[in-house]
């Protein structure tokens, strides 16, 4: 029953003014408070450091130019996630700082503002991140990778990577196609390695010239080339597919250079 209804009924029955006791909006969740000015200062710091990131990106050696989002489906997901995230900020701020109640209705509002909207916004952003980070532009976002990315489009280059890129033997996501193992485990491993690379680039904990960590699994090459007429016609390729994980030989032992030579990779 509403507070006003109780008051009205009581006044009719008793016939005199009745002062209702103050309503405790804190419900059963305690009464500790935190000064709102502290919250406001924290928000200002976050907006400064997260949104105005151009100078920070330059200081960290990261490319501040945005990576284009071309896939129409991803654009829809991005827009929906953006709306959910902005709605979550607005609704939760209104519910916590302005409405400031903890009754049953408020708990449902907070459930939407603190669980449903942030959850869907983060999920959408996560999908966009997973797909967009496969783009070659994403790999080139760290300046330390500039020699590799620039070599891809260099018409004078004779590297294996440039041949695959310029001839469109791999039409899209060229870095990802050659540097991630196939299957779910390969995707997860590739993404985790990408986060690690980003951390090393931002923190400066890497050594020049950049080299691949660990041996290259030539089963990745065979996933496209095996069975191709041109590949099968070469005598040296015979029997390779039977032992694709052999450590004493690899495709890049014969087919080189794959990327610019280490001594020609300019420091960022």
């Amino acid at each position, binding site marked *: 029953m509403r507070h006003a209804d109780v008051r009205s009924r009581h006044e009719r029955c008793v016939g005199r003014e009745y002062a209702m006791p103050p309503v405790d909006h804190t419900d059963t969740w305690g009464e500790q408070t935190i000064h709102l000015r502290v919250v406001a200062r924290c928000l200002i710091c976050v907006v400064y450091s*997260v949104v105005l990131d151009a100078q920070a990106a330059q200081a960290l050696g*990261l490319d501040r130019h945005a990576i284009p*989002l071309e896939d129409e489906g991803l654009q829809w997901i991005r827009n929906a996630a953006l709306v959910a995230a902005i709605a979550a*900020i607005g609704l*939760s701020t209104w519910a916590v700082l302005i409405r400031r*109640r903890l009754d049953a209705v408020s708990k449902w509002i907070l459930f939407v503002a603190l669980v449903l909207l*942030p959850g869907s916004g983060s999920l959408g952003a996560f999908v966009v991140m997973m797909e967009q980070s496969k783009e070659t532009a994403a790999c080139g976002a760290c300046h330390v990778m500039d020699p590799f990315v620039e070599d891809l489009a260099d018409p004078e280059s004779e590297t294996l990577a440039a041949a695959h890129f310029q001839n469109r033997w791999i039409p899209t996501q060229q870095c990802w196609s050659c540097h991630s193992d196939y299957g779910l485990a390969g995707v997860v491993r590739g993404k985790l390695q990408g986060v690690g690379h980003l951390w090393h680039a*931002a923190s400066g904990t890497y050594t020049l010239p950049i080299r691949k960590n660990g041996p290259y699994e030539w089963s990745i090459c065979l996933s496209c080339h095996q069975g191709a007429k041109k590949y099968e016609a070469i005598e040296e390729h015979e029997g390779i597919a039977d032992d694709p994980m052999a450590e004493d030989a690899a495709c890049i032992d014969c087919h080189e250079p794959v990327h610019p030579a280490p001594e020609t990779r300019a420091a960022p």
Partner: protein
Amino acid sequence: MTTSDAKVPKTLLMVWLASVVGMLATVAFLVNYTALSLGVFSTVGMTLTGLSIGGWVVMLVADLVRRRVL
């Protein structure tokens, strides 16, 4: 006592703050997809959003237990 005088629990304010920071990182990433915004979102943003959602669920369950609903 007016509505504006009502006290908001410190725990809820912390959950809200984590959620807002996480969502700001998400918005920054979605508006401007750069290496830095990707890094901030994938580390700070997703962690804080997860903590805020988990914090809210813990608060809700604790409240239900206190009310002897669960």
